């Protein structure tokens, strides 16, 4: 069943929509959740919450590419669950590693007058990412959005781990400079 047909099931309030979604995307969503949570039980909880969120959001939403839409929901829920469960302690896993890598980018103080909301920062991020070369963009998104390991990112971007690591480092430096130029970091 293609995505348009599955979305139509949601719109018709046909409960088989969830079963069909699960059959098609469970493995895909579990990968995203596991990258963040590093725990099968928590990942299953996150993915189950994703199906509920999907049911509650369609309609009115009508995504064209269901994997991207569901992936965003899973990612958001998983990060939220990670924060809830690990407020004080460190944890293993790709999200924890990605988080520590990104701390260098955001180590400055925010402008006290401005409260940068995620959506505004997201728009800046889009402009920044579009300015990058394809490999730079893909490694960045693979590592920090999908939270894939460095080894996985290097493999599907067709480069060595060393090259991917260097590329990510340079991209983080560029991002930090970009945010500073945009006046959001001091």
């Amino acid at each position: 069943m293609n995505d348009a047909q599955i979305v139509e099931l949601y719109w018709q309030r046909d409960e088989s929509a969830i079963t069909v979604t699960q059959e098609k995307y469970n493995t895909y969503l579990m990968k995203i959740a596991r990258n963040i949570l590093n725990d099968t039980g928590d990942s299953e909880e996150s993915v189950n919450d994703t199906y509920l969120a999907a049911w509650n959001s369609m309609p009115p939403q009508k995504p064209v590419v269901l994997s991207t839409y569901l992936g965003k929901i899973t990612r958001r829920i998983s990060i939220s669950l990670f924060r809830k469960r690990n407020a004080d302690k460190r944890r293993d896993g790709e999200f924890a590693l990605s988080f520590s890598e990104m701390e260098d980018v955001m180590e400055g103080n925010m402008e006290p007058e401005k409260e940068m909301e995620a959506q505004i920062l997201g728009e800046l991020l889009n402009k920044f990412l579009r300015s990058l070369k394809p490999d730079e963009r893909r490694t960045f998104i693979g590592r920090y959005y999908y939270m894939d390991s460095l080894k996985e990112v290097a493999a599907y971007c067709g480069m060595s781990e060393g090259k991917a690591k260097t590329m990510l480092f340079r991209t983080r430096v560029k991002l930090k400079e970009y945010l500073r130029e945009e006046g959001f970091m001091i």
Partner: protein
Amino acid sequence: MNTDLIFDAMDYIDDDMLEDVDALRTKKKANPNRIWMRYASVAACLCVIIGAVYLLDRTGMIDTTEIADGVDQENSFAGEDKVHNYVRADIITSDSTSLAVTDPQKITAIYDILRTELQSEAAADDKLYSENDNKAAGEMADGNGKTEDIGGIIAQSQYTIKLISADGAEKVYTLVGKVVRNESTGETFSLSSNQYNELMEILNQK
């Protein structure tokens, strides 16, 4: 915390950039055993053919001298009845500009790209494109320059490569790619594999 904010901000990354990466992530990995089996079966077929030709030649049933003479095996492809030696590649892009390549090394490099089963790759891998793209890609594979608008993604885009032999025979291949239209950035073209980058390198070489 600031670092939390940037991870939250990534929720707003445009879908087309995410889909571009997701296509790479979910591409089915080649099974090494399948690759070896494919090469082994091709090698076995070649052995049978060469053996048959040798035996038939020995018995005088066929004359192989005409085929062997003057044919560059690296720059050749099989036509219907004979092997052709191609001396030119025309690259016809989706916006109708064309580029003729006559350098034998460049032609060989382009031909190496075309050896992979481009059309079956696009048709067989259901994670490479969405199902709607698969349908459009299948329709593109017959060489017609058709476009189909699917939710902001223009599924057509192709480089048509026409190999032309010294005796005028032509063989046409199509590299099927994907064009994404974004209101702010216009259109970007990308092939689903590294072939686009390889092709660009070849075309841009001095």
